[in-house]
């Protein structure tokens, strides 16, 4: 018995306008999706060139989910995006060169080489850096929502989690606290159908992840995670509901992880047909055709945007590569915060 609501796909430009996006916004969404993929594709190249130490993860297939939700967030809303959510960082305005610097362990990455991959965030953009342990950031996101509730601010916290990570206790405790206190919180499940090599039926036994929302006293919605506009619309609805005191929502964005778990993984365990089927639903391709059909995206515009992004990428890689490696003598610096660290607008 499915309990969660299934979101409708988005149709016309009119509908989208009603949802709050004008043509310029739509092109920004399109750019953000392209930059998201561009950063990860370039990262892949850098990795193969041996410029990225450690491992390397991407969110291919999740560009609509991550960009769609981030687009719906207000400037003062906050979030805890994960390893498939590069689009959130991009949409919130993280400069690509800093991401490359992060990948390469350089001093100018958001974590100054202390952490790698997407384990980063720019706090000024309302994001909090993820840890590896999944889904350990959900209780943190709920704490942000609690702060907003205590201070009676009209702000919302968004917490991401994978369908696999939904099995761990942190997910349950976070949803329990958010549900009992009706906090201004939106839970976003990046359901990419695999947790490393583990299929969904070994991760959860409900029909959908969103079905679980009722266990916490709020609404669950399943949305096509390759349809950026549907994701946007549902996220916006949930965020505005939370903002107005309506409590949490769980949005499950269904997609497929289009690559291995990380760069070393060829995903032999994913049926080939599954990849083929979902390749047809590539979020960027889908949105591009939608723009052509519904918002008069011209070939010239398309080329222009492609060029623009190519340039951003090339400049960013160059600038990142110019960033120095961190100075080893700083290895013990900053383990403890000092009172000056609290000298931020947040901490007044």
């Amino acid at each position, binding site marked *: 018995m499915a309990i969660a609501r299934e979101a409708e796909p988005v149709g016309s430009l009119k509908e989208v306008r009603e949802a709050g996006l004008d043509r310029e916004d739509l092109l920004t969404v399109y750019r953000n999706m392209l930059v998201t993929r561009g950063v990860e594709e370039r990262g892949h190249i850098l990795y193969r060139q041996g410029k990225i130490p450690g491992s390397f993860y991407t969110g291919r297939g999740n560009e609509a989910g991550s960009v769609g939700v981030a687009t719906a967030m207000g400037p003062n809303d906050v979030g805890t995006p994960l390893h498939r959510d590069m689009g959130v960082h991009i949409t919130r305005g993280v400069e690509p060169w800093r991401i490359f610097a992060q990948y390469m362990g350089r001093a100018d990455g958001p974590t100054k080489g202390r952490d790698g991959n997407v384990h980063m965030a720019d706090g000024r953009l309302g994001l909090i850096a993820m840890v590896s342990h999944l889904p350990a950031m959900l209780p943190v996101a709920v704490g942000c929502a609690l702060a907003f509730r205590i201070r009676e601010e009209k702000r919302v916290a968004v917490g991401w989690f994978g369908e696999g990570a939904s099995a761990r206790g942190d997910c349950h*405790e976070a949803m329990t*606290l958010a549900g009992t206190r009706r906090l201004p919180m939106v839970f976003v499940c990046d359901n990419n159908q695999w947790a490393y090599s583990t299929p969904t039926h070994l991760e959860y036994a409900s029909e959908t992840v969103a079905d679980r929302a009722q266990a916490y006293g709020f609404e669950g919605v399943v949305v096509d995670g390759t349809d950026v506009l549907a994701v946007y619309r549902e996220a916006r609805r949930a965020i505005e509901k939370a903002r107005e005191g309506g409590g949490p929502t769980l949005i499950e964005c269904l997609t497929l992880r289009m690559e291995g778990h990380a760069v070393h993984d060829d995903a032999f365990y994913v049926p080939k047909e599954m990849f083929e089927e979902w390749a047809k639903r590539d979020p960027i391709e889908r949105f591009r055709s939608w723009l052509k059909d519904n918002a008069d995206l011209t070939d010239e515009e398309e080329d222009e945007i492609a060029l623009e992004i190519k340039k951003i990428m090339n400049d960013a890689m160059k600038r990142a590569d110019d960033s120095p490696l961190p100075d080893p003598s700083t290895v013990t610096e900053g383990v403890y*915060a000092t009172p000056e660290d609290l000298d931020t607008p*947040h901490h007044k």
Partner: protein
Amino acid sequence: MPVMSYLQAISDGLRVEMRRDKRVYVIGQDVGVYGGAFKVTQGFQDEFGPWRVIDAPLAETAIVGSCTGAAIMGMRPVAEMQFADFVSCAWDHLVTVAAKQRYRAGTPVPIVVRCPSGGGFSGGPFHSQNPESSFAHIPGLKVVCPATPADAKGLLISSIEDPNPVLYMEHKHLYRRIKDEVPEERYTIPLGEARIHREGDDITLVTWGAMVYTADEAATQVEAEGISVELIDLRTVAPWDKQAVLKSVEKTSKALVLHEDTRTGGFGAEIVATITEEAFESLDAPVKRVTAPDAPVPFSPPLEKAFIPQVEDVVAGLKDLAAY
């Protein structure tokens, strides 16, 4: 100056700080209407309202983890564990997120986790533990273990003010048993500064928490036999006041470390190791540890008494050292 019990001093410190700074709030099981299992927050919900004194579900990770999020948003949360033992349920959050966020991401996490700790009243294996050593090993966390009412208040306010995650271990056996003068106004006591509880010349005795009283009694007993003990109350275990200890050992040439936690890998080992490394030439005898044995805390009174270090155990240790 008013006289307060150790428990009242904690309560007072928290109240003073909540009145001064509206970013401070309390969250924990039964802290609201009930006033907390030990009544530290009794009356708080009436004064500060239900959104600054928050009854939480039975979910320690949600409690402490949400404090981290709220702290990053500018609040100064104080979480209450119903017993220190239950902080094990928030271990992952504390060591994985709270402890490392400043180093990794530059994000300070100013939270306090109040942990009613320690044994001595047949609380059994799960209501008597002293988990300070486990946390003191984790870079990024601070651990505070006050022994006196005045320290309890001043150190609590400092912990709330501190920009880092602080585990504040309040010893349950001191709650109502220990009373002393406590300044009425707000004051802070710096984290990381030990207190000389008693001056002496022959042996340095390092301890903290409830063991300060056990140590003091033992010191009084051996004094009668002409052994002069310098008793150092560390007050905070992370960071700990290495300089105060080394300085004392340079004077006395002998040292005993006492703690209520179990022996192997307990924080006493760190203190002994540091003394050995940094004051080796001053030492006239091996540094000694008196601790609980390596076992869970047993429930039945005779077993618990055999488990928790007693005055006579410390006396024996001091005499051994004196005779060395």
